[in-house]
């Protein structure tokens, strides 16, 4: 029986889910800004208590490793590192963009092509494109990227789904495309982990290998080390 703890803290939302082989068991989330450090672990504790599970009964912990808010990503990654290390559990490190694409597939399975765009702040988006086929599964067809919205190539066609808060940015909203400006959540993290496990694609890792993926790596200006 595969029991999973799943969590996501990569955006302004913060959510936790417990998942068993046949589906979601319990779920909680909050949208309160800057509350992730205060809310995440009490949510984990309370859901485990509700389900009557202990961490040691889990097959592992799944979480989004980014992209997303730098701080948000680190809240989740640091927590999962600690939980998994202490409980001696393996970790499933998932792309936030992949999780959002799977979130879209769950709501609109008829869409065979997906464009995911998250709000990366500073007028940019984190994005990736996907193909979806019930037989072969969901596959990313581009690298995960940090882009100015006007650099995004819009896919055309009736079977294109678009998901993510990046689509609410003015430049993309102006395209008039039909979109779901959803934030990622832990239910989808668990569901995507479950999908990967079912297709034998789950790449379990030891907790120290769980590391954030930021995509935006230019975060400081180099200056002369001395003088001036």
């Amino acid at each position, binding site marked *: 029986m595969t029991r999973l703890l799943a969590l996501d803290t990569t955006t302004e939302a913060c959510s936790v889910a417990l998942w068993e082989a046949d589906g979601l068991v319990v779920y909680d989330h909050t949208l309160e800004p800057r509350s992730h450090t205060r809310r995440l*672990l009490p949510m984990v*504790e309370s859901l485990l208590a509700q389900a009557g599970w202990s961490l040691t009964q889990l097959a592992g912990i799944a979480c989004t490793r980014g992209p997303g808010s730098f701080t948000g990503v680190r809240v989740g990654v*640091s927590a999962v590192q*600690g939980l998994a*290390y*202490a409980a001696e559990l393996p970790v499933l490190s998932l792309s936030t963009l992949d999780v959002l694409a799977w979130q879209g597939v769950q709501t609109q399975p008829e869409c065979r092509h997906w464009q995911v765009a998250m709000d990366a702040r500073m007028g940019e988006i984190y994005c990736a494109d996907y193909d979806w086929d019930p037989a072969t599964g969901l596959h990313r067809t581009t690298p995960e990227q940090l882009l100015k919205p006007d650099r995004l190539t819009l896919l055309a066609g009736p079977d294109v789904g678009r998901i993510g808060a990046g689509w609410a940015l003015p430049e993309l909203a102006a395209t008039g495309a039909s979109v779901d400006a959803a934030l990622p959540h832990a239910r989808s993290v668990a569901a995507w982990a479950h999908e990967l496990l079912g297709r034998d694609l789950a790449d379990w890792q030891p907790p120290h290998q769980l590391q954030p993926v930021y995509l935006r790596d230019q975060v400081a200006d180099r200056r002369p080390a001395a003088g001036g």
Partner: protein
Amino acid sequence: MRVLGIESSCDETGVAVYDTERGLLSHALFSQVKLHAEYGGVVPELASRDHVRRLLPLVDQVLAEAGLSRQDVDGVAYTTGPGLLGALMVGAMAGRSLALAWGVPAVAVHHMEGHLLAPMLEAEPPAFPFVALLVSGGHTQLIKVEALGRYELLGESLDDAAGEAFDKTAKLLGLPYPGGPELARLAEQGVPERFVFTAPMIDRPGMDFSFSGLKTAVRQAVARLPTPLSEQDRADVALGFQTAVVRALEVKCRRALQATGHRTLVVAGGVSANTALRAALDRMAAKERGRVYYPDLRFCTDNGAMIAYAGAQRLLAGEQVDSAVTLHARWPLTDLQPPGQSAGQAA
């Protein structure tokens, strides 16, 4: 009780295990100094990113060196402030999560209380009550310490911290970041009294400090020298600067001992490693029939051992925090309470 301590408030990832019966079992530190050197100062985002990379391997290392398995930890202590929020968050979230999964108590530690108690890790620890001089790149404070958590501020810097003044003066002299320790080494080659800078605020009553005026005086003196500065000029200026800082610290420490009637002075923080400062304070304390206690040189700068120790004292007294992690960029030491009288966190 074996306590895992985690420090990540700035640019050092420190982890240690302290046993309340056997003392410090192991400690490990990863310093990010090289990472930040090319930026001329700590870049908070890069610091946070590095803490996430370093933390678990360091936990693994200290448990292995202590000969412990993961189940042998009885409590977890982690720094929750003051410091860089993003950096604090990494150690605090990981630390609190470890405690949750192990089912052991956790305690939130004030970074400066960690520094203040670092001399307690020594074979001959000081006893309460005492006067503490906390002197680092971020703080210059004189504290009256009656007991764990009973702190009264006697004086502090009105502008730059002493360590900050060391770093800024080092930069002025063209020394690579972080220049404070380098400046102290350079001062050893200096000719005494070629440059005499007034020790700031010693002619005024009270126990406050000010170091920004001294920095300006040094800049003016340097501007009058031929460029590029010769090695001897730089050494002489460095010595003049250091002498003035040490004098100011010495005078205010003596006043603090006299004002409180305490005989014990505890000096902690990065600048407490400074040899000239130690010599001057030892001389002063001898005249006052007192004694000065310093941390081991390894525990003057940020480290996990002091956090493990401070956390262990509070855990022993029954203090613990729930799993909601609260962090404090600013957090006056005097807001702390003795164990049991607060949740270990600022209001």
